């Protein structure tokens, strides 16, 4: 085949992917970047080039910092806690016990439920006075708490829902990874006199490292991406206490119809996620090559 027809062949093969990626990934990204550099246009004042003015506005707005702070706490708590719980559940579900498959299914249920449906369930749990949690603490004589209605507890209530939702999902990955560890490794360790804890620390955890990094990447992306439950539970309130970055962007774009600022915020998130993903994949390459 001549080089020319060969390159035509290559283009033909790449064409479908190129079209799809351009339409749904490249064009939106570039359009977002582009529109983040202009002011909001109206009938009387057309949009004009604003350099980095939109970004400056965002950095000057205390709500932006509040939202970023919220998201950092949200990520900082949900990621390690849900990974730790997932690992514990997986270790337990991997051991010999009765009704193993029932337990595994039960753990996985939160992942199968749509987030909106799950949030409605939790809304009932959190409802002051008649909710499940208030009923339970009422038995012990505590006063009713408006879990979602006060800034001190609202974010933590959201965090709890997320951990509940995510742990079961991550557990499945850990469970799969645990089942690839040959049982002879444990027997070899037992013969050497290894305690269960040492075996876990020196053998199981290192072998789960690739899974942990994979789960970590997912958890990090989810900490920015998962906001469905905010729409049902708090709508970002009270007093921005539960407003997370993606919800804030949605609000800017569709409640305040301020597309340029929403675009600017989106670009910032993309940059931040890009940096984190790069670091994590470097780590994966370094730590997981023994497989």
């Amino acid at each position, binding site marked *: 085949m001549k080089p020319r027809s060969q390159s035509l062949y290559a283009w033909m093969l790449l064409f479908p992917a190129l079209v799809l990626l351009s339409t749904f990934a490249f064009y939106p990204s570039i359009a977002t970047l582009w529109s983040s550099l202009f002011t909001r246009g109206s009938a009387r004042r057309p949009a004009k080039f604003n350099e980095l003015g939109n970004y400056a506005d965002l950095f000057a707005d205390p709500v932006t910092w509040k939202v970023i702070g919220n998201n950092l706490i949200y990520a900082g708590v949900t990621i390690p806690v849900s990974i730790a719980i997932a690992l514990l559940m997986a270790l337990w579900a991997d051991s010999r016990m009765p009704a193993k498959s029932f337990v595994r299914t039960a753990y996985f249920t939160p992942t199968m439920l749509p987030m909106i449906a799950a949030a409605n369930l939790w809304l009932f749990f959190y409802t002051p006075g008649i909710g499940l949690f208030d009923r339970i603490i009422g038995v012990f004589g505590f006063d009713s708490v408006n879990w979602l209605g006060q800034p001190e507890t609202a974010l933590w209530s959201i965090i709890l829902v997320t951990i509940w939702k995510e742990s079961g999902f991550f557990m499945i990955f850990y469970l799969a990874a645990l089942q690839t560890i040959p049982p*002879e490794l444990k027997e070899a360790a*037992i*013969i050497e006199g*290894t305690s269960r804890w*040492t075996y876990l620390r020196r053998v199981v955890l*290192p072998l789960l*490292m690739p899974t942990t990094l994979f789960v970590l990447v997912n958890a990090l992306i989810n900490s920015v991406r998962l906001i469905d439950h905010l729409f049902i539970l708090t709508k970002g309130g009270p007093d921005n206490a539960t407003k997370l970055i993606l919800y804030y962007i949605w609000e800017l774009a569709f409640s305040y119809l301020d597309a340029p600022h929403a675009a600017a915020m989106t670009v910032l998130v993309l940059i931040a996620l890009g940096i984190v993903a790069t670091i994590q994949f470097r780590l994966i390459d370094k730590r997981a090559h023994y497989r």
Partner: protein
Amino acid sequence: MAHAAAAIPGTSHAEPFIRIDGLNRHFAGGAGVHDLSLDIPRGSFTTLLGPSGCGKSTTLRLLAGLETPDSGSIRIDGRDVTTLAPSERGLSMVFQSYALFPHLSVKDNIEFGLRVRRVPAGERRARLNEALDLTDLRGFEARKPAQLSGGQRQRVALARAVVAGHPLCLMDEPLSNLDAKLRHSVRQDIRRLQRRLGMTVIYVTHDQTEAMSMADTVVLMRDGRIEQAASPADIYANPTTEFAATFVGSPPIQMMPPLSGEQAPRVGIRAEDLHLVEPKKGLLTVSVTSTEFLGAETYIYVRATEGDDIIVRAPGRVEPAPGTSFDLDWQPEAAHRFDQKGNRLALHRKTLVPAE
């Protein structure tokens, strides 16, 4: 004490190194071991041989403490270890899959047990170096198991077993993942290592060549029971059952069709004890079906009017045409006679004298 252990040559001491007494471990479906008793002398190389499902691996795992017996006792070096944890039994084990830790280097794999037992750094280094020298693994310390060949991985598993300095080493089909050529040389290496360190080795295999070539004592197992425990020469020359006779030896013992003038229901003869002679001058009329040339010898497949093919070993290269009629002849004492149940009838014992 009524002790019904299988007789093993060289067990004249008051108590052998290992004494297994009336050991039972039953699994659903009939597998496991049944009323197993066995004495193993110190410093010996014993192979547990048998087809899959015969209980050889279960016996090894019971010895290691990875399985708990339903009843019976295991004594190692004068101590009752029946209920002790594996690590308290003073033994090491080589697994069929080697069970190397994939995330640890060769050095860390070998040292794993020493670190767990908190052996001081100086002693640890000395023992590591000794194990590396013994297994010829110097220069590979920093490699991960995935970067090693099958034979090297096998040596790491061996090094990990000898580094602990335990007097007893259990090996569960350690050569089955190696190719045939390597298997032969590693067989020699293991035997040399065992002699040099004076270890007692109990070695599980389903390969009778491996068992025969390495062992001081071959323990042939079948259906969870010991079929025969004897030296390789003895088990070859005097198999106590038809099963032992056909399992040990390559080619297996040749079972004859019913013979006129023979009282024993079942007669087996080793292929090298059979000779083809002129028609009417032997004991059984046969015709050649095919030949198999192996270099130093030829297997001649012959068949009588009834029964399966019989293999006759002939030295060098001979090519009788298929269909040629011969008579099969053998010395009367070469015949192994068994009753209907497969138990040995003739009570004379053969002694194999080493050829000078």
